[in-house]
């Protein structure tokens, strides 16, 4: 089981796809000569050449749209965005076009395209560069949306995403690129639509995804010391959401804490809360506790940003308040 950086796990998935499928190519801003804003594609231009590692102009709307066209015509583009915030410049293409085309054509055309982008706050990039728009993207039918929390999941999900015949958005927590984790030598995939029970427990289910996994893991360690045995669930896939794994966990522990690192209002966990209410309300011993980052534009100042960002303390506090422990 070799150790690998999160960014290198994604790169490995890209390399495999480029090696095995000539219809796969990569495009994005400064992914070639510059090596990628987060160095995920570093070295790929030398390895695969400019036909397959395509530097684009700063034209998100157009190169996303071009990706759709290429996908419809039989290629499998993987598109890197420098930040999920810049997806907004191409939102029309992603939502109106990529996600809807198959449906509108009555199933005649597929868009096997992957969009990848760093997401999330935490490094003082201020309001325009710190957002987490997987919360918007995961609402769109026709578009799948995943968010890995480990190098293992990053590789497994990128493999599945590139093989998928639908458009898939891979939100990559920017804070995780330099984190290490193990991957097996044998080939594996992480199926889109399957949550991961990271740790099984009996007293409370803690749900999150992406960078939030670190927070619920630390919360679980804290609770453990107080004799509370938490189950940890990583959603991994935000659309489709794994309702079965969620229900099973809730019905087992009867207590729920949901954690978003994105802004709490309109976050992914709002949807999870709604699903739990629909499916498992009779199994609950108390309220569905939802915690997220503050509903503010992300500030530049370090202390303010830290304050806005959800942390272990606030999760513990919300749990204790919700369940009177």
């Amino acid at each position, binding site marked *: 089981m070799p150790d690998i950086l999160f960014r290198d796990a994604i790169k490995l998935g890209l390399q495999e796809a480029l090696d095995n499928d000539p219809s796969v190519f990569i495009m994005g801003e*400064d992914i070639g000569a510059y090596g990628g804003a987060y160095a995920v594609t570093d070295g790929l231009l030398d390895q695969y050449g400019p036909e397959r590692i395509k530097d684009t102009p700063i034209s998100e709307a157009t190169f996303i749209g071009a990706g759709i066209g290429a996908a419809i015509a039989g290629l499998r583009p993987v598109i890197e965005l420098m930040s999920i915030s810049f997806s907004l410049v191409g939102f029309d293409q992603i939502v109106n076009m990529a996600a809807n085309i198959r449906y509108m054509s009555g199933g005649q055309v597929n868009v096997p395209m992957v969009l990848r982008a760093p997401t999330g706050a935490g490094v003082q990039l201020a309001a325009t560069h710190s957002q987490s728009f997987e919360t918007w993207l995961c609402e769109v039918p026709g578009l799948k949306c995943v968010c890995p929390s480990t190098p293992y999941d990053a590789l497994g999900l990128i493999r599945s995403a590139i093989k998928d015949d639908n458009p898939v958005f891979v939100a990559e927590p920017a804070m995780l690129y330099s984190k290490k984790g193990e991957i097996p030598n044998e080939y594996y995939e992480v199926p889109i639509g399957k949550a991961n029970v990271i740790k099984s427990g009996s007293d409370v289910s803690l749900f999150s995804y992406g960078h939030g996994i670190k927070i619920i893991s630390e919360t679980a360690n804290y609770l453990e010391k107080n004799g509370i045995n938490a189950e940890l669930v990583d959603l991994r896939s935000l659309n489709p959401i794994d309702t079965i794994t969620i229900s099973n966990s809730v019905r087992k522990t009867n207590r729920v804490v949901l954690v978003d690192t994105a802004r709490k209002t309109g976050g992914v966990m709002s949807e999870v809360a709604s699903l739990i209410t629909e499916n498992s309300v009779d199994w609950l011993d108390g309220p569905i506790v939802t915690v997220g980052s503050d509903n503010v534009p992300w500030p530049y100042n370090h202390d303010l940003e830290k304050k806005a960002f959800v942390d272990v303390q606030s999760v513990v506090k919300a749990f204790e308040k919700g369940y009177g422990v």
Partner: protein
Amino acid sequence: MPRTRRSKKIKNTSSGNSFHDRDALLGLFKQMYLIRQFEITCGEQYSQGNIRGFLHLYIGQEATGVGVLSQLSKDDYVITHYRDHGHALARGLDVNRSMAELFGKSTGLSKGKGGSMHLFDVSKKFMGGHAIVAGQLPVAAGLSLAQKYKNEEGITVCFFGDGATNQGVYHETLNLAAVWQLPILFVLENNGYGMGSSIERVRAGGTDFYPGVSTYGIDTAEVDGMDVLAVREATRAAIDKIRSNSSPYFIECKTFRFVGHSYADGQKYRDNDEIKSWRNKDPVETFPKYLINQNMSTDQEISDIKSKIDKQIDQAVKFAENSPNPPMSELYKDIYRD
């Protein structure tokens, strides 16, 4: 249909003699040197961890911002992108408060909430650094629309880089400004690169942008962006034209950033010779030499100016260091107007 007008090539006019009084010229040098020292200091403070996030320095491009902004009046709006420190200082934004913003302090221009890429001072009609590439262009059109609507004297100056010209809104804004004949000055700071992408790799039609702009019926000029006097002269002419015709104008400044795109950039995509050859035109070095040659200043005077500004920057760092962080309550303020 707006008429297509011819592009005018503005020559190096360092030897020209319009509005060449000594104080004005020394003022240009002071501003360029202030920006240079501010930026060098920002780099140092970044490596010490006092400034964080993204830091895009203006080193090398000083003549452009200073030349353009020297010709504005207080009624004019200025709007720019994330490489905004030079524009902010040349517009006369407070040096202490600018530095404090980069430190994220409560005394900063935006109370520490915006940081390096988002400097604002509405009292100086400085309407922001904006960090989404080309995002400021349509907003600039709106500022000048309001000026025209309200019959105001002022015009709007909008700075952007070569990379921004590949966004749709760049073209859409040029078109709108021409269709509505807005009093706006577009200033393209063509520094040859958008991050690691040289123009040739991402733009069809060569490395000159102004010829394409004239297809929108907008007057254009090309100018040596390393020559502060040439930039100043081109701007003067442009502004006169904008005011008399109430129509847009476009200046392309050929310039260069001597340093990486942001502080983290190793510059693998270009070679040292290119950087060196541009450094020979460094306006912060060549312009004071020119002034001395023309007997408009002396070595002594230049070095006095420099040490005064060095002290001013030291002061700004102290001011920023000693300023408090914003209180936590600031997190929830300024989202809506009450």
